[in-house]
Each structure stands twice: as structure tokens, then as C-alpha cells.
């Protein structure tokens, strides 16, 4: 991956570098030590590799699945250990084809988060080393955190 390597990039540096390197990425808002962005799902793996290798974001804090009813979303929270800056990346995943590239090979810490998003939302992470159910029983047939899965008293 080309580009300069930063140890502790500032918020404004991150914003300008990401917009330059990834035209499909949009920075929605920034505040002190926080960058919020949306990205295309096809570029997620390249984007995460770039953030890990060139911007020195060693830690994947969290990875959440979200059911927006018209579409699914995967939200990444990445953090830098040098200056405490965090990047939030939201990526839309169409609900009729819920697939996205796995980042477990970049951050080992994302492994179980992806398994959790898979079993609770049915989002498939392509390239994941072991995409199996983790919290629910292995013979479970539902994706219980989808909005279409109603709780008792709700239906």
C-alpha cells in the first residue's frame, strides 16, 4: 500500500489523508480525538489495511452490526494507542446480499466481534477463519437481533 506512514496522525491529517486515498469515503463529522466516516463495503478491506498499516491504528475497539430495516450496517471503531484518536467507519450492507470482507486478518481482536455480528444479524464476513455461532447454540436457526425478530409481546 503506497503512502506515508504516520505514528500519531491528528484528526485533520486523518481526514485529509483518507479523503485523498479513498474517493468513495466520506467524512461526516469530526470532533476532538474523533473522526466519523462512511465507506463503501467493497473498499472496506483496503481501507482497514491502510488505517492499520499507514495510520498506526493498532486496536480494533469494536465492530457492531446494525439492522436499519432497509439495509444492514457494519460499524467499526478503531483506535490509536499513541494519541487516543478514534475513527468510526460505517458501511452499508444490502439486506438481500449481506456480505462484507472480514477484517479479522488485520486485527485479531475483530474475530469474535464478527462472529457475534454474524450470528445475531446474519451478516456474512468473507474470509473469516471460523464463522460459527458463538453466543447462541450452534443449531439455532434465527438471527435474533434483526428487527424482524419480534420479542414476546411485541408481535
Amino acid at each position, binding site marked *: 500500500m503506497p503512502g506515508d506512514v504516520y505514528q500519531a496522525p491528528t484528526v485533520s491529517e486523518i481526514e485529509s489523508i483518507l479523503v485523498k486515498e479513498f474517493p468513495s469515503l466520506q467524512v461526516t463529522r469530526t470532533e476532538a*480525538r474523533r473522526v466519523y466516516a462512511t465507506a463503501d463495503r467493497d473498499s472496506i478491506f483496503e481501507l482497514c489495511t491502510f488505517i492499520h498499516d499507514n495510520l498506526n491504528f*493498532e*486496536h*480494533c*475497539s*469494536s465492530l*457492531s452490526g*446494525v*439492522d436499519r430495516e432497509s439495509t444492514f450496517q457494519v*460499524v467499526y*471503531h478503531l483506535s490509536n*494507542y499513541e*494519541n*487516543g484518536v*478514534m475513527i*468510526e467507519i*460505517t458501511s452499508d450492507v444490502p439486506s438481500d446480499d449481506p456480505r462484507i470482507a472480514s477484517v479479522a486478518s488485520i*486485527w*485479531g*481482536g*475483530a*474475530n*469474535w*466481534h464478527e462472529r457475534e455480528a454474524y450470528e445475531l444479524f446474519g451478516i456474512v464476513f468473507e474470509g473469516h477463519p471460523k464463522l460459527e455461532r*458463538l*453466543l*447462541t*447454540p450452534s443449531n439455532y436457526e434465527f438471527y*435474533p*437481533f434483526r428487527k424482524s425478530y419480534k*420479542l414476546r409481546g*411485541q408481535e
Partner: protein
Amino acid sequence: MMPEPEIKLDSMNTDRMTVIMGPQHPFSHGLWTLKVEVDGEIVTDAEPIIGYLHRGWEKECENRTYPKIIPMADRLCYSASMTWSHIYCMTVEKALDVDIPDKAKYLRIVADEICRIQSHLMWLAAVGTDLGNLTVFLWAMREREFFLDLNVRLCGARMTTNYPRIGGVRNDTTEYFDRDCMRCVERFEKRLWDIIALVDDSSVFVSRMQGISRLTREQVANLGVTGPAMRGCGVDFDIRRDDPYDGYDEMDFEVPVLKEGDTYARYMVRIEEMFQSCEIIRQAMKKIQDMPRSAPYRLKVPSAVPEGTHFARLEDPRGESLMYLISDGTDKPYRLKVRSPIFVNVSAAKPMVQGCRIADVPAVMAMVDMCLGETDR
């Protein structure tokens, strides 16, 4: 100390065997299983199995109004209830864009650090029983009781405290709380040296921790291990100092970091953190005492949260906890995601125990400080 004999896996001619440790096992401290593959005495592979306590916490929250989630957040982990309800309130405050009164910030700091000390003492007690030293268990539990009494004085409950509120805290300090808090902290700082002497003079303890389960800085950073386990491996990062929230930027304290990366370093980091927590309590109490008694400690906030996505993170006794909130303009969250530190720390069990002897597995996993309520959610 004797040097560790070098062990070559391939040179031994033994059968591989799978040992299921848990869910009912003295080392597991909750319902979870560690599937360990051993070659003779040496662990070659390990896989944690969790989910026995999964109760759909995040989905349950989508069905409740915002204030009703505070007592639920307490129950994510019984020994870190204060930090869990704190992070929840902090996330909602961010979504509401309110700045809480200064007194509430300092009260939260005092409550968080009391919670940190009692949580670390609970861990120390568990380590004591795991490694066969019951005196450590009794002494740590005895000291912990004083901090639980402080909790009672502050908010009326020992463990599930239900103290932070969206926009501040539930109540101001009760009468003589500052006096009792200072006495308790001063007494504890002396007593902690007794416990350290008990552990460090015990060859049983030290030889079962030193040089075992070494992890490098790069490994822990990549595996997402956070908290004392990470700082014992040389990652110099503490959210309280490097990404401060709720008044921690005004506190002056040190972050203990050790480069050794073995089990003993993770133990030492937690012990040192207890001293630092005492120091933080002292500073925060001083700030509260300097304020007038009538200073506000709580803001009135609207019940509906404007549409948007927000997250906040905080240094839990066990690591980094993060909550991600999606609000849709109603009085109930659309989605609330919880990032539990133990959920990620325990996923690193394989690199932690690989190459250790099977008898060392309880010592290594004790340093994760398991809490299943927040892991399974």
C-alpha cells in the same frame, strides 16, 4: 529462582488429549468452558466456549426507555456495576449533548475508583484461591468489605449500585462520607502492603506466575486485549489519561506499565493500579470538599433523545468498555451495542495458554479476571 527448563514440543512422544475445563470447574469463575488440547503436560491448543449466560441484553434495551436501562447496565458485571452504568449514562449524555455539573463528575470519579479497587480486590481473592493461598482470599475479601461499606454510604447498595443518572448522579454525598472515605483509603494503603508481602514472599505464588504466558506488545495490541493485561505487556495506554472523560483530565496520576508481559507483570499492574486509585479518590474528594454543599449534582434532561449515532468509551477495571448508541428520536434506543473488555480478552485465550503446562492454565486465565455477565450479555 531456577531457570525455566526449555521444552521442545516435537521431541516428546505423547498422545494428544482434549481436556474440557468448565463450565463447572473451580478455575472458571462463572459459566464458561476452556477446551484445552494437551500434549502430555503442555497445552498445544485452547478454545474458549461462552454463551451460557447470553440473555439478549442489547435487544432487551431496545424495548425499554432510557432511564430504565441504568439498573440493567449495573447487572452487566456485578463487581464493576458503577463503571457500566457510568458508561451508559455518558453515551446518552453525548447523544443529548449535555454537559454535566462539575460536582457530578467528581462524584462519578470517586465512585468509579471505589469500584475499581473493590473489583481488583475481588480479582485478588479469586487469584488467591486459584493458586492455593487461602489467606490472600480472606484478606482481600476483608479489605473489599470496607469499600462495599463506602458504596452503601454513597448510594445505599453494596454491589448493584444504580448510582449514575443521565445528567449527573442520583444523590450528593451523605453526611460524613468524605471523612469515612479518607479513613478507608488511608487504612487500605497500609493494608495493601501486608497483602503484597503475603504474595511476594510466597514462593508458591511467585513461581506459578513468573515467566509464564509471555505476550509481546504487538500481540496484545492486535488481539484487542485491553486493561491491566495489556499494560502488563508494555502497551502504554489508559483511556483515563489518553482519552479523558468526565473530569479525569484534572486528576494527576500515573499509569503503571510493565514490559515483561508475563502473568506476574499483569498481577503487578493491578496491584499498582489500586494505589493510583487511592490517589485519585483523594484528589477528587478534595475537589468535592472545596465546592459548596449546595452545588448542583444533577441536570434535568429530556426523556427523548434526538436522532443520531454516538459512542463513548471508558476505562473499566477490566479494560476498555465502549457503548455505541443509535437513537431514533423516541424515548427508547434503536440499537445499543456493548463492547465488553472480557469478551475480547478471553478470545485471546489460545495465545495466552499455548505452550504453558496445564497446571498453569488457572493462573494464566485468572489474570483475565473473568466476568460472564458482560461477556455473554
